[in-house]
């Protein structure tokens, strides 16, 4: 549904996307918006903005995006950066593809040149619009059992202005099946580097029972025991910070529509120092289940989403078990978002209730 399409939704219709979610979910746009947002925030802070300071105190983790350039536009900037750190490793991703399609890792500049030449020849759909982003590769990821993983977190946005967002507390970690090394020779082994389930399931070591998926609960249990409580808590707060800032970065660009809601899949990588990095945001996170516990989790995800987004006076809302609208299931309302919009806390409660 695009804003110009002219379709209008009836009172009793709601839809699971915002019209221009690409601002957040297309890799190059997200990068652009975040860069701009950071500048704005810094400016506001220098001007002594109250909001910026409040944000600073609660969500103070802002450098969560690995250095990223858009290709071919930013090629010169990228080449300059690359020459500064010739040993660095970078990952190339098409801006508009998902599920790990078209992703590869480079550590030499000439690989890009060769790629741009080959790409034009081989891929029929490669036209001028087909841009790539190149990001600094997090090459010291946190390894558990010797394997690399990334996190999939779910975030539900029901309104952009004011921003009302919920974090789902049952994300999961997706593991590679092959032990991780930072060996150069293995850079093209996608079973080692790419955690996408859609790639991993073709590996020889893929197991249907576990699907390479580990619950966040287990991850936190492990991290608390092996790394300590303080750093684990900090990690969780920083992940919250990633979510809040990335949403605020696009808040004013999004078409706000009371008929719309959207569930985003956040991909986050944790490095060896327990620093989370935002990789990308997906507008249509996979809801298909690969394992039994995955199915349970996704059932409850959909259930909880419906419970939150369906208004009380909605026809046939009796179908969902939304007796108590305060019950958000496994979703946690990201606090302080409303108070940032309207400094007075009294309006915050009223607002939450009105929206549900």
């Amino acid at each position, binding site marked *: 549904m695009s804003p110009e399409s002219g379709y209008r939704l009836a009172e009793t219709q709601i839809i699971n996307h915002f019209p221009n979610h690409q601002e957040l979910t297309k890799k190059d746009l997200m990068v652009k918006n975040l860069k701009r947002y950071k500048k704005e925030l810094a400016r506001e802070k220098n001007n002594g903005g109250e909001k910026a300071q409040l944000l600073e105190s609660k969500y103070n983790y802002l450098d969560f995006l690995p250095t990223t350039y858009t290709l071919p536009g930013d090629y010169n900037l990228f080449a300059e950066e690359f020459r500064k750190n010739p040993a660095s490793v970078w990952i190339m991703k098409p801006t508009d593809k998902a599920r790990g399609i078209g992703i590869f890792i480079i550590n030499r500049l000439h690989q890009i040149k060769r790629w741009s030449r080959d790409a034009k020849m081989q891929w029929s759909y490669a036209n001028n619009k087909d841009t790539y982003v190149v990001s600094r590769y997090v090459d010291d990821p946190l390894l*558990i*059992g*010797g*394997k690399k993983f990334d996190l999939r977190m779910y975030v539900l946005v029901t309104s952009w202005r004011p921003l009302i967002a919920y974090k789902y507390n049952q994300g999961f970690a997706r*593991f590679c*099946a*092959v*032990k991780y090394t930072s060996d150069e020779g293995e850079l093209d082994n996608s079973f080692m580097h790419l955690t996408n389930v859609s790639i991993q399931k073709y590996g*020889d*070591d893929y*197991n*249907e*029972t*576990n*699907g*390479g*998926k*580990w*619950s966040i*609960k*287990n991850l936190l*249990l*492990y991290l*608390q*025991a*092996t*790394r*300590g*409580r303080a750093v*684990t808590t900090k990690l969780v707060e920083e992940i919250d910070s990633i979510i809040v800032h990335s949403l605020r970065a696009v808040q004013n660009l999004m078409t706000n529509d009371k008929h719309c809601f959207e569930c985003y899949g956040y991909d986050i990588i944790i490095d060896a120092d327990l620093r989370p990095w935002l990789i990308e945001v997906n507008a249509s996170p996979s809801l298909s289940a690969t*394992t039994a*516990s995955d199915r349970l989790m996704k059932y409850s995800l959909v259930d909880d989403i419906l419970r939150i987004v369906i208004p009380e006076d909605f026809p046939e809302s009796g179908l969902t078990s939304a007796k108590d609208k305060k019950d958000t299931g496994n979703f946690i309302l990201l606090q302080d978002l409303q108070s940032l919009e309207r400094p007075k806390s009294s309006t915050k409660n009223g607002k939450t209730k009105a929206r549900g």
Partner: protein
Amino acid sequence: MSLVDPGTDPGPGTPADVRDVRAAAKSIERGLRGNSAYWAFKKLVQTEALASPAHRDIASVAKGIFERPGGVGQRIQNHVRLACRTVSSSRAQQHPVQWWAPRSSDRTVFRTDHLVLDPRVRKVLDAAQKGLMAAAKKQVARVAVEMDVPLARRRTRQEEAIFLQYAFAARPDDPPAPVSSNSTLPAHGGPRDPDRVCLYDDQDLLDALLGTALPAGLGTGGNTLPPDFSAFWSSIPIDLAAPPVLLEELAYKYAELHPRYEQIGMDEVGFSSESATQAAHFLHTRITAGEAILSRRCFSRASMYARQGVPTCLRARLWDLLLQSELIDDPATYTQKYCKPLKAALAQHELLVDHLVQADARQCRNDDAFFVFEDVLKEMMLFWIRDEWIDARLCPAAPAAQATHSPAAPQPSPPKSASIAGATLPPVGGAVAEGTGIADNNSNGNNNGVGNGKAGSTTTTLPTTAPATPRVIVKKYPPNGVLPFWGVSCYAMPVCFLHADAESAYMTFRELYVCCFTHLHTLQPSRTTPTLPHLLAHFESLIKQYSAPLFHHVARVAHAPPARLAARWIVFAFVGVLDVAQVLLLWDRVLGYGPDGDGLALFAVAAAALFAFREDVLWAARSPRDVEAAFADLGAIEIVPLLQNFIFPLVCDDNDA
């Protein structure tokens, strides 16, 4: 009354005993000289004596250091207590004089009278265990032939180098994990021996137990009931739990589990914003208290602490305080030093059992909590299978005999440590098999502590390998003296959640194994520690006390002997049954109450609590399948409230009202 059998308690106080104690202390001191902690202590005394102005009075400086909270004295005390635990629990009868028997009153006394058995019953169980081990030994031979792999093989230098390089990388030729329609861990009815590599599994164990029978015309001690009746009333053919532990007794035994005390495992999670602050406060005070105990290294306080659960962030260290029986100065270096020879031995020799434990560890792929740790687990199990420390702990008499070169002569070792001595090795095509046994890698040089005071002279930690000399040393096979049963790696799985590296995880695992898990798959009764038959009898007795009609219904109407289900949970210490966080919470309590006594019995209590929890569903069950279904998904169970509900039923009801 002490930990050890009252019959063997020396009752110290007589001059002869004092002399014994002095002599023993001397020999212990000599033994300690091989320990780096001993020298670290001496060095500390030296530096402090030199630094302090009154450095002439070395004795008082030493005393100060010794008695400092969390200092050397405390460490030695912990060490002696733990070393004694393993010794006394395995073979109390072999050590008539135990000067180190704890006489402390701070430890609740584990009631051992229900472990006293009629010698004839004991004999029957011993025989069952022997039979099981003999069958397992045959399996080893069969697997060796079928897989065409020798029992042990010296790797060539080249192979050794390759092994060291790629040791634990998942190799592409690994067969996929056994997958059945319901892929789970064995405790949950997972695939049983799909590759036919297992020596024996929990089913065999249970069959061996249920297959026991007393010789005709022999009633069990004091039991005058007709045999038909007792067979009807229990699936365990021999009467063990006499006198049984009463349901009401549990409330006294496990007093610290009472709902009036705050518990880790329920009270640290808040559900409303108000209770969340309360919970956070509780967790905070709990962590502070735990840190204090850790810094003082106080064993008895640590075990009291563990009874109310250990916060996740302290668990690894607190468990080590409760478990590490060696006198260790610096755990990190000790671990490294200890695992180095194990790794070297691993690289040098390929054992048949390596394949078995690796296949066993691969099962973790069938669980979505543990699959991450597959490689870690493999490494741990490979260490375990060749760690002679395990053998030395499980039968402390063995090292002494080993030092004087024991032939394959029948020695009264427990049948679990079946030594396949003098086994002839089938030749391997192309590979050079140097020596028929395992070369002498003296990896048990570290344990010259109290456990084997007689063998205290072996202090070398380096493996003295001599591949050139065709020295044939008859040792136990496998080196740790334990023929692995199918699913043994389940015990190691939750430990992976505590340590980031395999070595540290292994150090915790080996202690857990010898003081706790080994009893869970042992039929042979012990005088001091409940083993599987006792635990099952305990479970049955609790269920019958809880609701005899329920027991009858499940056993006779649904035709699913409760002991069969419970055995699976107990044998695997609830791994794969409960969620991993819950398993850890349960193990906290097990360690707190003594993993070789009341704590171990807690596994039986937990099994009974699960049964009681599913009572309503069980009443509706009409077939074994219904009963299975009642316990199909226990992943969401919270074990602490469950135990409380069972142990303190009245209190919990009051709260509800």
